[in-house]
């Protein structure tokens, strides 16, 4: 068991890159089964996706990792570490750290669907750090499979040799051995020196209620074992290693983890926020000379208000947020009060998907019914007094008379896109107030478009629009740039002449008129008819710029009672009532959840 005995030459560290639904989790199951890591007895489909939500949405939120023992065709025994990666633009940083723990990656592509946008972003990340990427064509058993076309597509769009792509069907167990052989043959072993001071990459961490924080590390140099005093280099906090080991796939303790290996450490870390992804782990008394490059603190970029529909659920919501925060240091929450919605929280997320995931978990795992307000970014307000304050919602804006000017965050957006779609993407970026920086032809057919863009345009509908314009072929990556002065104003929405604070927005002056008009039109569609007329207005200051009316309900009556079938009547009424559940009373008007997010459905 001693890891010193493991020859680094026999280790292969790899990830699987795949689009949602292209079979990553099933393939991982097959690899586990084939290597005996997963017996039929404890088999549970899609082992790697632990959370229900992950399994259901087919996406991986938290990375998992597993060690496979493989007896290869060359007669030797190898240790294959499969490092799973989350799969969405919001988690790009986490993906990049997971990939940084590997030497290679499998690119799994559905042989009937072909290359999809989300795959691209991760492939580029992998190629950027020089991982050995080799393609696997999955689902070749499907009648619609067209391996030749997809092979060509991979070569054209991604620019890697797909000639020797493995043909597989994870569902049918076809190609599993070939994939394992390719991993051994193509992916280089890690390079590292066990004799050097410990230098390890922390690429995932989570909170376990029995063992505290568990961190996943890739040992670059050196050795770590139980009893060692380790230090996290970003915050200089030190801990004693209580357990070290690997997942195979269950937790197995090891005497030590050595250069090239991947495993877990349990070291009495209480707060998951102290174990940041990308950090370097070293020994307190024999530290490495320099931390690994690429560490960055992930900060919430997108904020939205979460309010319980039933005001009695406020305490429950607070407890639920605290529990989620235990495992996810990247989101934040602070109490917030809205005139319209009552007591709730202003929460910060990495991006829109992250926001959706947290909301869904709150509703599903904690049985909460929530109203979510439209996402916003963090603005800087420069006051006439010289003071600068940051605000995360329109309602935090100081009185107009105190404001000198506003600044909004800009990002640098990199969009990879096949050249057919360049025109559409450029038009979209311009519409979203982008400033063009560069258009690069990576190959004859592949273009990278780089724009400086206001983040507030991105958090609304940019990503959805980009996907639809490019039929899903664009990939978006972005990094934070700076704050820029901007002509921003507050747009208020009035329902029956009362401002609904939870619907107020900060938007660019040039867009206020059209956005306001489209927004009230959209809300008219979303607000169901009530027993009275509902007026929806958009206003800047006291000036109303748009108005729509939802007419009063005229007719809602059940007809005949066939032969005393009262249950049927009840069911019909209950179904109708169910539709009202996600409504929040604002004044005497019932507003559905969708109305609060209507701005996301407005183009422009």
């Amino acid at each position, binding site marked *: 068991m001693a890891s010193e005995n493991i020859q680094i030459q026999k280790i292969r560290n790899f990830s699987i890159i795949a689009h949602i639904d292209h079979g990553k989790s099933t393939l991982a199951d097959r690899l586990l089964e084939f290597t005996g890591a997963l017996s039929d007895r404890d088999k549970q489909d899609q082992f790697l996706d632990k959370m229900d939500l992950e399994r259901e949405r087919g996406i991986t939120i938290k990375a998992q990792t597993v060690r496979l023992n493989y007896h290869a065709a060359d007669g030797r025994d190898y240790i294959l570490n499969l490092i799973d990666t989350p799969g969405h633009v919001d988690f790009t940083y986490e993906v990049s750290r997971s990939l940084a723990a590997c030497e290679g990656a499998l690119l799994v592509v559905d042989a009937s669907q072909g290359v999809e946008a989300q795959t691209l972003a991760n492939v580029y990340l992998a190629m950027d750090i020089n991982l050995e990427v080799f393609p696997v064509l999955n689902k070749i058993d499907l009648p619609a499979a067209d391996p030749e076309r997809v092979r060509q597509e991979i070569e054209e769009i991604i620019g890697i040799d797909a000639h020797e792509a493995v043909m597989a069907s994870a569902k049918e167990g076809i190609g599993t051995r070939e994939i394992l052989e390719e991993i051994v043959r193509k992916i280089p072993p890690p390079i590292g020196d066990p004799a050097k001071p410990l230098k390890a990459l922390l690429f995932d961490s989570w909170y376990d209620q029995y063992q505290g924080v568990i961190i996943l590390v890739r040992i670059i140099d050196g050795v770590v074992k139980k009893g060692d005093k380790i230090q996290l280099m970003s915050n200089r906090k030190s801990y004693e290693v209580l357990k070290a080991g690997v997942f195979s796939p269950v937790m197995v303790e090891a005497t030590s983890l050595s250069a090239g290996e991947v495993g877990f450490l349990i070291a009495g870390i209480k707060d998951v926020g102290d174990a940041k992804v990308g950090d370097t782990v070293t020994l307190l008394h024999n530290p490495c000379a320099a931390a690994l490059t690429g560490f960055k603190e992930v900060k919430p970029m997108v904020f939205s208000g979460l309010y319980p529909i039933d005001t009695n659920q406020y305490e429950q919501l607070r407890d639920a947020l605290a529990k989620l925060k235990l495992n996810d240091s990247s989101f934040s929450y602070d109490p917030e009060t809205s005139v319209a919605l009552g007591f709730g929280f202003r929460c910060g997320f990495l991006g829109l998907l992250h926001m959706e995931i947290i909301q869904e978990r709150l509703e599903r795992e904690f049985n909460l019914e929530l109203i979510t307000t439209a996402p916003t970014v963090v603005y800087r307000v420069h006051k006439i007094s010289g003071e600068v304050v940051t605000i995360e919602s329109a309602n935090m804006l100081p009185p107009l008379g105190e404001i000198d000017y506003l600044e909004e965050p800009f990002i640098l957006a990199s969009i990879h896109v096949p050249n057919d779609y360049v025109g559409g993407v450029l038009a979209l970026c311009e519409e979203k107030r982008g400033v063009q920086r560069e258009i690069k032809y990576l190959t004859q057919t592949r273009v990278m478009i780089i724009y400086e863009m206001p983040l507030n345009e991105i958090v609304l509908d940019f990503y959805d629009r980009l996907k639809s314009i490019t039929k899903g072929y664009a990939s978006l990556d972005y990094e934070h740039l700076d704050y820029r002065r901007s002509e921003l104003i507050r747009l208020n929405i009035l329902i029956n002449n009362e401002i609904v604070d939870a619907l107020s927005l900060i938007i660019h002056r040039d867009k206020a008129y059209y956005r306001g008009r489209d927004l009230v039109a959209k809300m008219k569609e979303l607000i169901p008819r009530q*027993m009275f007329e509902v007026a929806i207005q958009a206003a800047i200051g006291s000036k109303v710029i748009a108005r729509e009316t939802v007419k009063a309900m005229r007719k*809602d*009556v059940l007809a005949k*009672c066939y*032969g*005393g079938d*009262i249950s049927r009547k*009840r069911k019909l*009424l209950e179904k109708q009532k169910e539709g009202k559940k996600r409504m929040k009373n604002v004044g005497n008007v019932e507003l559905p959840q969708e109305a609060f997010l209507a701005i996301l459905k407005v183009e422009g």
Partner: protein
Amino acid sequence: MQTALYIHFPFCLKKCLYCDFNSLAGSPVKAEAYVDGLLQEMALRAGVLSEPASAPTLYFGGGTPSLMDPKLVGRIIDTAARLYHLASDAEITLEANPGTLSKEKLAEFRSAGVNRLSLGVQAFDDRQLEMLGRVHNASQALAAYGLARDAGFTNISIDLIHSLPGETVDMWGTELRKALALQPEHISAYALTLEEGTPLAEQAATGVVELPAETDAVRQFELTTELLQAAGYEQYEISNFARPGFRSQHNQVYWRRGCYLGFGAGAHSFLREAPHGVRWKNADLPERYLATLAHRTLPEEEMHTLSRREAISEWLFLGLRMLEGVELAEFEDEFGGAVTDLFANELATLTGQGLLLMEGGRLRLSPAALIVSNQVFLRFL
């Protein structure tokens, strides 16, 4: 125990295009065999009742019960009298399709004991009748009505449907006047409901037929009340109108949460057993209904014991369908506690919106609330 009786005869000559009720055309089950089963069910049920029943009403619904041999109707009525103490002056209603009646048959129904006819006229316009997929035409409806009068029926109800595809407010007014000209004792008038999965709903979804605009449908609903009230009919329930003394006794049992026993395939029953009543239904398919009875077993399904909460909501959403509304003191007797405490906020909102009226110890829908009554009922679920 007072309990109304309902008899379901599920067979039809042809299924109407808007109907999603438990009715069948071309069933292999013969009417005689079906009625034998039905009589057996009546006997089995009588044997398990906790106390002897007495029945104020008997109602033959369907399907098309007027397709039955009057002799079979007579046997059922006799059985009801014997096993359920059907009162000698009981209201005995038969739903009748105008296309299935003859002078002789009507006379036989009458001598079998039927004293109220509910004529499924639906419309007096042949094109509309065809669109609905009815087997009769308008002149048959008029003729059937005349024959029924000739046969001595003094309590006749006419069923009408408004807001049909292509129907204007004027057209509906004409329909109502034609109905009034016949001077029936009772009129039921419903807006057409498109039931999921019916051919008519499909036609509406694909644009083959087009329902009237909402304002027109609302107007047709209002016009019904106006014209019928002017002609001396009381609107005693959202969709039911009667001349004084001719309300449907049987249907009022439903609205008032009275007991009723339903016999036949798919029939529904309700008994006010402690604490808050129990509802069930029979197997829908006649074959299965009969097969169960062949084992001397009651074909009951979906037995549901009501919770207090459910009983309360029923009490309100059924009772409020009657224009006289519900009596608050009765609620206290039944459920303990006052409805005004239990639904303080809801009542405040609804009376504030002018949808509910509270006066003289009663709670009732305002005239304006009738057409949006679901919006009221929803509050009490």
